[in-house]
């Protein structure tokens, strides 16, 4: 596709057909991903966890 784009140099951009057409399997993949994301969200723990090396508490000091 990119080759034909290079050859056909007009005053409009040729749509990238392969990217634009949604394949049935893509739709299925996206549904599955959406389902997995939703289910995974339900599996999460109680509260966000992040760790900064060296201290458990932050009292609002300036940026390092």
């Amino acid at each position, binding site marked *: 596709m990119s080759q034909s784009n290079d050859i056909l140099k007009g005053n409009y951009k040729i749509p990238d057909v392969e990217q634009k057409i949604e394949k049935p399997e893509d739709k299925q993949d996206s549904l599955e991903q959406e389902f*997995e*994301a939703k*289910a*995974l*969200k*339900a*599996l*999460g*723990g*109680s*509260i*966000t*966890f*992040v*760790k*900064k*090396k*060296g201290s*458990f*508490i*932050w*009292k*609002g000091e300036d*940026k*390092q």
Partner: protein
Amino acid sequence: MSNICDKLSRHMAEATTFKSLDAALSNAEKNKSFYGKTILDLAEASHKELKREAIVIVGGPSLHRKNPVDKIMASGFQGDIITADGSLGYCLRNGLIPDYVVTVDPNPFANRIVRWFGDPDLESRPEDDYFRRQDLDPEHWKNEIRANSELIELVNKYGCRIKAVIATSAHPDVTKRCVDSGMALYWWNPLYDDYDQPGSITRRVFESNRIPCLTTGGNVGTSAWIIAHAILGRKNIALVGMDLGYPPGTPLLNTQYYYELVELLGKEKVAEAFVHTYNPHIKETWFADPAYNWYREVFLELAKEADCTTYNCTEGGLLFGENINFIPLAEFLSKFSSEPAVKKAGV
């Protein structure tokens, strides 16, 4: 480890943020009118005390199986008793009034956390088998309505003697129960992200309420342990009921995330989401779901940096490894209790 459990565990940090962040921030807004003292006020007061020890009580299945409160009370232990919200009822029912109760979970899906304090609105809540299904205290939870009424009464009676170490993320119903029962509230913000990064949520929350922020460990039990050493400055900390796993033979239906795992994997594959681990200290094989597995890994990571000695006196579960002294509760108590008297009996 099972591949599925391993894979899911690796996504738990992200999944937890997706699950809890919006609710946590919304709760922090709703709780604003109750803000006053913070964990820094606790830190200041506690560092003046001579106490060096604390026991953190968490609501795992070993709690009702081993009943540590009897041993604690008989030992005359004079250190701090810090309970996670889920084991407050267990303590009070067994005659132990904790010094502190810790609560953090914003609980976005159902209003469950307030149940740990006795829920005045229980009868109008939607049906929820969460408490019945799990390995909590089978006799007690047989009659949920009666158990709830008893807990309301106990919390109302003894709340004025308990300090609530409450995260701004806690559900407003929990805040209200703590206030109504006479607890003194000490606030903290969970650390949500790197406060040094541009656009940090943690920094934004801090700037709106000026409340100090704390690493959580992902769950209330680990948060309670962090408060014991990082805020109260306790140097020897025992954990009881901190299983982070399920005892051998527990039906999968009775695990915390069973329905969610079935939805994700299907009934036929759900068993693959659990990892079975032999604990050489108790010579038993317990099992964990991805959440407990993640909590365990996080705890072991945090234990490397904690300025305390941690004794896991649960006598069950899966929290063992480097920087954890896995010993019987009696051994901890004989080391750190001064006199054989009953402490804090009053219920």
